[in-house]
């Protein structure tokens, strides 16, 4: 009974489930944020500001070598923050091709960046030339993207998302927005868990979900009710907020404790960034 259609559906089902658990893992897990490493020990405000400075530096520098230095620094930080380097690479690598390919491709070719050809080819009547400045530009671009993505990934891995959200308040984002976004996060988690549970529950009753019409119907119906359940829940959550005195403008804790270590770290970050800028622009 190896109907190719069945196989494909089974595949879709499996990849949907693994996509779900990947989303959960990637966006909602706080495993690394809870480890006791260097970056985890910093005040989220200082951490965010310093990483913003690194990002600006990575984006403005015009030398691949200097950006590479920053990338090396990022790896060292990851190491001292107890992030498995392989996992870190895997996370960043996932985004890099996506980002770089679509932007780099056109600049590679002579059409956009004229210059000394490094390599030319003829494919079915189309002449392509890869030029020296084009290639250099591409290398610079890839390094830049890799560094920027790594910085963002590192910051998000080592900070709880609730704290990242709280940092938003520093930049004048209203509290109601912060609370709403953090609740959306929660619902996302809840929704993913519910869909996973529904798949397991239906499977335990009717076998492989997508091979049976009946199973598909149950899943469709369940996903619809899941949606209803989440909206109904948000009404109830609103009641729970009212019950504890919410009247339209939430007030939340604003506790951050900056230590001398945080100030020292900020100083280091400023020195590194200005050093790189100095080397890149004045030497």
């Amino acid at each position, binding site marked *: 009974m190896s109907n190719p259609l069945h196989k494909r559906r089974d595949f879709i089902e499996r990849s949907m489930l693994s996509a779900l658990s990947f989303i959960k893992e990637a966006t909602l897990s706080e495993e690394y944020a809870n480890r006791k490493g260097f970056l985890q020990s910093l005040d989220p405000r200082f951490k965010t500001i310093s990483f913003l400075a690194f990002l600006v530096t990575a984006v403005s520098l015009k030398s691949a070598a200097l950006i590479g230095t920053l990338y090396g620094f990022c790896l060292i930080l990851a190491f001292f923050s107890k992030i498995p380097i392989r996992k870190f690479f895997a996370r960043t690598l996932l985004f890099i091709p996506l980002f770089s390919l679509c932007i780099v491709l056109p600049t590679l070719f002579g059409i956009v960046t004229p210059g000394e050809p490094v390599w030319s080819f003829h494919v079915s009547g189309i002449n392509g030339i890869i030029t020296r400045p084009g290639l250099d530009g591409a290398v610079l671009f890839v390094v830049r993207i890799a560094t920027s993505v790594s910085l963002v990934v590192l910051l998000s891995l080592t900070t709880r998302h*609730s704290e990242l*959200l709280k940092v938003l308040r520093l930049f004048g984002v209203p509290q109601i927005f912060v609370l709403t976004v953090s609740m959306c996060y929660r619902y996302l988690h809840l929704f993913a868990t519910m869909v996973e549970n529904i798949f397991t529950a239906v499977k335990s009753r009717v076998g492989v979900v997508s091979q049976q019409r009946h199973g598909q119907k149950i899943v469709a119906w369940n996903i619809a009710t899941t949606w209803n359940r989440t909206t109904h829940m948000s009404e109830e959550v609103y009641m729970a907020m*009212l019950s504890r005195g919410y*009247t339209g403008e*939430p007030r*939340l*804790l604003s506790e951050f404790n900056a230590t001398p270590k945080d100030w020292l770290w900020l100083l280091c970050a400023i020195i590194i960034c200005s050093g790189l800028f100095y080397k890149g622009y004045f030497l």
Partner: protein
Amino acid sequence: MSDIIFEVKDVHYSYLGKFPALCGVEMTIRSGEKIAVIGANGTGKSTLLQLLDGLIFPDHGHVTAFGERLLENSQNDEKSAHRFRRRVGLVFQNADIQLFCPSVKEDIAFGPLQFGVAEEEVNRRILEVAKALDIQHLLDRVPHQLSIGEKRRVAIASVLAIDPDVYLFDEPTAGLDPLTVRHIIDFIVTASQRGKTIITATHDLHIIGEIADTVYVFGRNKSIVRGGSSESVLNDRTLLESNNLIHIHRHHHGGREHVHQHLPLEPHD
């Protein structure tokens, strides 16, 4: 009389106008009383607690709290809403709903912060409440990732931080292990000794003797079929049986089968 806290008069409530949840409920609750509301699933216990907490409002009849009618628009201005909310705290049946903040600490702080309590005082209360409910180790955790029992304790802590005069508990012990149940009962008893008014909805008859002096039994007609002292209600087998609160058990014991009733006051072997 000034010590009356809640007065429920001929209250009818239905969801969306077509699912009746309460039909003609009358009760009077005085300051410092320990009340239990028992009844089978779907008899309107949660609905009653939400009415008492001023979250929903009756279609018919009225609820008076602290001598004032609970009306939808009386809570529109912050001052009067806060006056009521400071005095009444509801621990929801579903702790997942009650906890909506990104961390346990913030959830505990939410109530006091809305009332304008200063942050130092809030931080002091967080520690005090966490100690009382033995959740110090959970303060930095994400609420929705906790176990059911841990969530329940955090939910209670979030209400305790407000320090209301009246506690409304909706199924505080459902699905918890014996030790946690013990912990929560002790909490309720202590609160009552401190003069708090306690209203608990439950169908766990084993705990009623400790957490209530007065029991109201809700029947399938979604109104009170009996109210009285907890002993008199717990000893009324026919009443409890006809309201799905006790049931006949068939057990296998060492190959022998025997039948007995599940009674609230005698723990069964």
